[in-house]
């Protein structure tokens, strides 16, 4: 079954590649447009991801497990959620950057609820993005979003974290 899944995935990727290259040669417009979207998004990601993963690597070797456990782990209390959200504020890029970082935090001993709060907060209150947003849509708009979503994010993360920890949930292993 797993084999089959892998095969069909590879098949789909090949199909996509063939479709784009054929489109480029016979000037099939939709295919060219899709190819252009792929390329522009690829460039955006490739500008960010090397730095993100280098920082994750440095984090892995330099930050002690006890430090994370103490501030973001089980003994840490409510303050740990505040740390998670502040850390999220400095994140750039979007969910696809926050997710690998969240995974690294988790494997270093951050508790699940804090990891969830970090992910959601990284989605909604990244500082550079918020400055940009408020500049265009106004501060009132951003303020409403912050004050309504952040409490909900914290409460839902605590509940979700406790629930999944009680069920013995483990995040997928990515290291080896």
């Amino acid at each position: 079954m797993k084999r089959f899944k892998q095969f069909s995935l590879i098949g789909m990727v090949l199909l996509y590649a063939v479709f784009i290259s054929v489109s480029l040669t016979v000037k099939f417009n939709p295919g060219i447009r899709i190819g252009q979207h792929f390329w522009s998004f690829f460039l955006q990601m490739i500008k960010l991801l090397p730095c993100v993963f280098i920082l994750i690597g440095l984090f892995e070797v330099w930050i002690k497990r006890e430090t994370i456990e103490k501030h973001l782990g089980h003994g840490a209390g409510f303050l740990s959620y505040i740390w998670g959200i502040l850390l999220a504020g400095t994140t750039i890029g979007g969910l696809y950057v926050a997710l690998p970082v969240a995974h690294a935090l988790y494997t270093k001993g951050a508790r699940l609820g804090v990891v969830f709060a970090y992910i959601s907060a990284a989605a909604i209150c990244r500082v550079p993005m918020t400055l940009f947003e408020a500049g265009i849509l106004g501060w009132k708009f951003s303020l409403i979003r912050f004050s309504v979503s952040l409490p909900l994010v914290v409460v839902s993360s605590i509940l979700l974290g406790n629930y999944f920890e009680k069920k013995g949930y483990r995040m997928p292993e990515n290291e080896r």
Partner: protein
Amino acid sequence: MIILYIITAVLVLLSFAVDFRKTLKAFRISLKRFLKISPAFGGMLILVSVAMYIFPEEFIADSLGSGSIWISTAAGSLIGSITLMPGFIAFPLCGVLRDYGVQYMVLSGFTTTLMMVGILSFPVEKACLGVKVAVVRNIISLVIALIVAVSTGIIYGEIAL
């Protein structure tokens, strides 16, 4: 963006200065993690490129700007959940739509789901969190985004309670 490069460069140099071997180990971890998750990123790229073709900006503008405020908000939240778009495209688009009279509640639903709910980044989320947590997280995020949108509508006086 430039700040990120500077911070990374400074930290790497600092790390090399303190412990050369440890830094090499860090690079090995970086590379390994990146290679491990790159298929998920590839899948996301393919999905995004197709979705951007299916939902071009004109289509989004049309869906957000027509119909009643509730239908537009629902449409905006749906499109926001599906698509993945960087802020420097999404917010100027919202600015233009606002000037055309699209309500703040609709824009809030669109931008908040855009940021919080990631159907197209699901391959990456699945690799990091696992299927079950990824699904639950996205559903809760959608609910939160809708609450945010309705609150925005109430505070801007666009809908009556």
